[in-house]
């Protein structure tokens, strides 16, 4: 058993003969480590011992003692507000008045003198059990608090790296971009990013890290930084992912991975170059209201297999066309009937979005998903990035 569940028993009595008697009666339990006794001779000594031995869980106290009696000790113990510290009072036979006072001051149980050692053993065991339950509950409570703390750290990392000012490039009329992430309760690893590579080219990224918590958040932050750093150098999309993959493979613990779509939109020519590492293919929203899927490149997720090549592909956009990137938190949102939102529903919604702004596209889809999943706990981050090319 853990150290923290080792409970000491403190006997408080001014009768000095009690210590050898108890050591003799419970010698077996003491030898096997089942019981561990500490002795004090009045209330003050008892309080001092509590500081010295924080693992005391049971106090067995006499009432009449010099310096500080048992009933005063009980009052002091109550002030400590330690639910896993139990006091058993030992009183003279038939002394109901003191017993009542002791119970009202928070004693867990009482015994009467002369002490019957069989009864004492039963009482100790019963009290020990209760103390252990309390300590375990307290321990679990502390663990929950620390987990919640971890989740907050992860959330801060995640939120800290997402660009959140829109419009991000206020002077530009040749394109619009809007993105949003709705984080699940348990922090996942979605991210998005975008940056101007030069005056004409915009790099934009969406990614989804497998796994949860701090490791996923760190992996996400590293992925985003690598892609941004290589992207800003103006490297082709596929080469950026290849470079990021090789470095991520060194970072990846127990096969954590990230799916990434990285696009480079040339605002002057309308050409979009892209590479896709295992991410859901985005949609092209044509000016006439029809939609198309961005053709797959068949490349694998980042972070697991090094020295993989990643292809760059190209498509052309016309002024008025847009692109929608999303993570599987969108298409794999569940409703109350346990059905997924699905690509079909997304596609039919997209078909109603002719002439929508980038902002409106994201907002309408996010609202539709949240309406669909009404009343069901969100299990994955929901992330959307919409780019509109105005030419």
């Amino acid at each position, binding site marked *: 058993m853990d150290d923290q569940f080792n409970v000491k028993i403190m006997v408080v009595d001014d009768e000095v003969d009690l210590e050898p008697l108890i050591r003799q009666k419970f010698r077996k339990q003491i030898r096997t480590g089942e019981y561990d006794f500490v002795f004090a001779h009045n209330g003050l000594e008892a309080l001092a011992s509590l500081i010295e031995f924080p693992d005391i869980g049971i106090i067995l106290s006499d009432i009449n003692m010099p310096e500080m009696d048992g009933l005063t000790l009980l009052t002091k113990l109550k002030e400590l507000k330690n639910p896993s510290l139990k006091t058993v009072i030992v009183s003279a036979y038939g002394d109901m008045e003191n017993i009542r006072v002791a119970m009202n001051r928070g004693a867990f149980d009482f015994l009467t003198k002369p002490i019957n050692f069989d009864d004492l053993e039963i009482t100790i065991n019963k009290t020990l059990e209760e103390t252990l339950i309390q300590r375990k509950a307290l321990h679990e409570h502390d663990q929950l608090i620390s987990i919640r703390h971890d989740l907050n750290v992860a959330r801060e990392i995640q939120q800290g790296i997402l660009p959140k000012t829109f419009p991000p490039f206020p002077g530009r009329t040749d394109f619009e971009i809007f993105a949003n992430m709705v984080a699940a309760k348990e922090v996942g690893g979605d991210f998005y990013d975008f940056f101007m590579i030069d005056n004409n080219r915009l790099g934009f990224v969406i990614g989804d890290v*497998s*796994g949860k918590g701090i490791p996923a958040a760190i992996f996400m932050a590293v992925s985003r930084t690598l892609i941004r750093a290589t992207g800003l150098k103006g490297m082709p999309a596929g080469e950026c992912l290849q470079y990021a993959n090789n470095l991520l493979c060194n970072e990846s613990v*127990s*096969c954590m*991975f990230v*799916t990434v779509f990285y696009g480079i939109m040339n605002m002057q020519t309308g050409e979009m170059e892209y590479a896709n590492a295992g991410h859901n293919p985005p949609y092209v929203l044509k000016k006439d209201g029809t939609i198309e899927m961005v053709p797959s490149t068949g*490349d*694998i997720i980042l972070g697991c297999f090094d020295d993989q090549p990643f292809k760059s592909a190209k498509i052309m956009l016309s002024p008025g066309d847009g692109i929608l990137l999303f993570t599987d938190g969108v298409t794999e949102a569940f409703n109350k009937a346990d059905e997924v939102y699905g690509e079909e529903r997304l596609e039919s919604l997209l078909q109603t979005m002719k002439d929508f702004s980038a902002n409106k596209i994201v907002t309408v889809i996010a609202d539709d998903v949240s309406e669909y999943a009404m009343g069901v706990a969100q299990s994955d981050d929901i992330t959307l990035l919409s780019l509109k090319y105005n030419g």
Partner: protein
Amino acid sequence: MEVTDTKKGDYLVINLSGRLDTSNYGELEKKLIGFIEAGDKKIAVDCSGLVYISSSGLRVLLMALKKITAAGGKFHLCCLQDNIREIFEIAGFTSIFRVFDTLDEATA
């Protein structure tokens, strides 16, 4: 999700059914690591009952593949439903895993 295992020839066959997602991938991870550490080197995963797999689930399969391959063993998948196969294709996993149509082929 339910995970059961049987023997078929040289292969340890693991049947997955239901949904493999964030809430239960740890259970499968533990089992697979247990088998691999116990020396099972030929494992076939029958996915005929698997209706959904999240990225956490994919990670577990990937981990098993890497561990077994490193130990010189085989890790096969079979009987993927269409939606699962699609997820595998999107993630680029079909080029990494050996995926078979039937359990017989996967354990041949």
